[in-house]
């Protein structure tokens, strides 16, 4: 693991031999001339703008000064790379339409612009003098001390030299002692300087390169829209089910009844045989539409909840299924729905692919989670990716912040485990029981 920023570098071995102390020093040192330039620029702009505002031309100039933070922040974000490899994202949005006016309107209304202006003022007045002070104290002073013997020999003519305007040295042994102390302090200073550079960079990042400001908001929006999609999908299912039930199904039942009566009245013969055939067809159609409706939205789930619906799904499974359930009663509707369809899909897969003799569904509720395990004693080797429909179910479960995992070694047993938190954040669902 190569360190990617000063904090990691400080903790890594061989810090003093690495390039990080140099990078930290470079970061602070380059800040000094830049800070001075910014200060001069700001003052010049304000003075010129102030004076010229008497003849009105200064006002736009002052307004332009407000945008002065933009180039400064640009350079500062670049400079961050000296002490931190992580990219500093530009917080500005791209204007929706071309042209200077759109650009200016956007920039003047962005929060980032004003943060950058604030940073620029802070940089010009406080930060660069602070950088200079830190470099002077932490590097300059120890280096001066270390140079004491040399200074003694040159400037002091071997007799007397003043170090840092405080100590007056009059002998070489004293000079050497100070030099040794200076070297020790230099080592300490390098560490301190690196910490200072890291802190300085963190402040800069906080002010002008915040970690994708809208990201949290966007994630919430996305999560909400996903929940809304699933809700809409559910509502649509219920609507289709209602329409089929109130329309086609009732008509078919009436048709079957009419044919049944007609059969009773028909004298034996070809006509009666035809009627019998038609009646059988109508019954077959009824069976099909009944299964179809049940697949779209099982009424038992709405009426009796997950436990009953799963028992019902087990009843329908061609492979014998044992159901053990220990649930505290009704769960939120989206949870019940997702859990039920997972069980259905799993049982369908077991019937189709596993060659299992038995299957088992275990459901429980603990630590605010609905836990389900659907297992079978089949041949195993199932893969959630090969179009088993489990992928879509995984998505449905994850919308509810749940997890779905499949373990299916070759030779079995296959276990599908599902966990869904039952306390769904109310902000995401408009339905809070």
């Amino acid at each position, binding site marked *: 693991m190569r360190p990617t920023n000063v904090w990691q570098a400080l903790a890594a071995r061989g810090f003093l031999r690495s390039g990080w102390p140099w990078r930290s020093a470079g970061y602070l040192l380059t800040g000094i001339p830049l800070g001075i330039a910014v200060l001069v620029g700001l003052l010049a702009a304000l003075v010129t703008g102030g004076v010229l505002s008497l003849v009105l031309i200064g006002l736009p100039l002052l307004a332009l000064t407000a945008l002065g933070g933009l180039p400064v922040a640009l350079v500062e974000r670049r400079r961050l790379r000296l002490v931190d490899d992580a990219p500093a994202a530009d917080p500005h949005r791209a204007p929706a339409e071309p042209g200077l006016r759109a650009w200016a309107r956007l920039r003047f209304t962005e929060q980032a612009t004003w943060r950058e202006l604030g940073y620029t003022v802070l940089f010009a007045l406080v930060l660069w003098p602070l950088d200079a002070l830190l470099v002077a104290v932490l590097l300059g002073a120890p280096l001066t001390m270390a140079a004491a013997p040399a200074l003694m020999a040159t400037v002091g003519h071997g007799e007397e030299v003043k170090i840092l305007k405080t100590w007056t040295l009059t002998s070489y042994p004293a000079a050497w002692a100070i030099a040794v102390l200076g070297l020790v302090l230099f080592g300490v200073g390098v560490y301190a300087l690196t910490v200072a550079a890291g802190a300085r960079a963190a402040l800069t990042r906080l002010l002008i390169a915040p970690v994708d400001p809208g990201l949290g908001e966007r994630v919430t929006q996305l999560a909400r829209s996903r929940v809304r999609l699933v809700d809409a999908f559910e509502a649509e299912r219920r609507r289709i089910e*209602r329409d089929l039930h109130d329309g086609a199904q009732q008509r078919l*039942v009436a048709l079957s009844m009419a044919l*049944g009566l007609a059969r009773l009245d028909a004298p034996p013969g070809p006509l009666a045989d035809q009627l019998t055939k038609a009646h059988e067809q109508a019954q077959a159609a009824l069976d099909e539409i009944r299964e179809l*409706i049940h697949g779209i939205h099982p009424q038992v789930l*709405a009426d009796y909840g997950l436990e009953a619906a799963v028992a*019902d799904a087990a009843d329908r499974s*061609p492979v014998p299924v044992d159901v053990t359930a220990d649930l505290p009663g009704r769960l939120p509707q989206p949870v019940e729905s997702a859990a039920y369809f997972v069980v259905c899909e799993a049982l369908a897969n077991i019937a189709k692919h596993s060659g299992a003799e038995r299957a088992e569904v275990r459901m429980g509720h603990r630590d605010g989670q609905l836990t389900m395990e659907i297992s079978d004693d089949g041949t195993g080797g199932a893969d959630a990716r090969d179009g088993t429909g489990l992928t879509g179910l995984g998505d449905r479960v994850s919308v509810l912040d749940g997890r779905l995992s499949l373990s299916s070694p070759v030779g079995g047993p296959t276990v599908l485990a599902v966990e869904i938190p039952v306390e769904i954040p109310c902000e995401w669902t408009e339905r809070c029981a």
Partner: protein
Amino acid sequence: MRVDRTLRVVLAEDSVLLREGLVGLLERFGHEVVAAVGDADALTTAVRAHTPDILLTDVRMPPGFQDEGLRAAVELRAQRPGLPVLVLSQYVQRAYAAELLDSGDGSGVGYLLKDRVGQVEEFLDALRDVADGGTVVDPEVVRQLLRRRRDPLAALTPREREVLALIAQGKSNGAIARELVVSDAAVGKHISSIFAKLDLPPADETHRRVLAVLAFLRS
């Protein structure tokens, strides 16, 4: 087809088409529909007003289109034990059947798939059986239950299961004997064996039959 007595029926079904069809069918076979209603509240009112021989109701009804019909029927049976109820459901579901059979002592109730009204004779037979205090469960429910294992019924032989399934459909010993082409005595033997295996104490014969069916449904 036996037409041995006229039943006074309260009919509750929200689909106008089916309601009309059922009224026509029942009247054609000599029964009297004293009230035909389209929602659960009207159902309750009609039963209280007319004291019918049997209530024939759909499960799903306005206002909520969930199981209002079934709820109203269970409620009514709690208030007037012995009110015969035949419930028509568009699905085969154990939960509904079990709830219905649990109301009262499980006699005089029926749970049929709605599609069965097309099989006119069987439907009318079921209606009469329930009115006479029998218990009728749709063969489809029974078929599903027989798929299940590891329950009190696991001890039953396949033949005994068949017999129990026929009992659950409200058939008499004679009818079961005819269906399975065995003697009445053989059927009686099977039935005592079933009762023994399901741990049902010897008591009133009909009552035990009902309990067997209940065991069957609750398993």
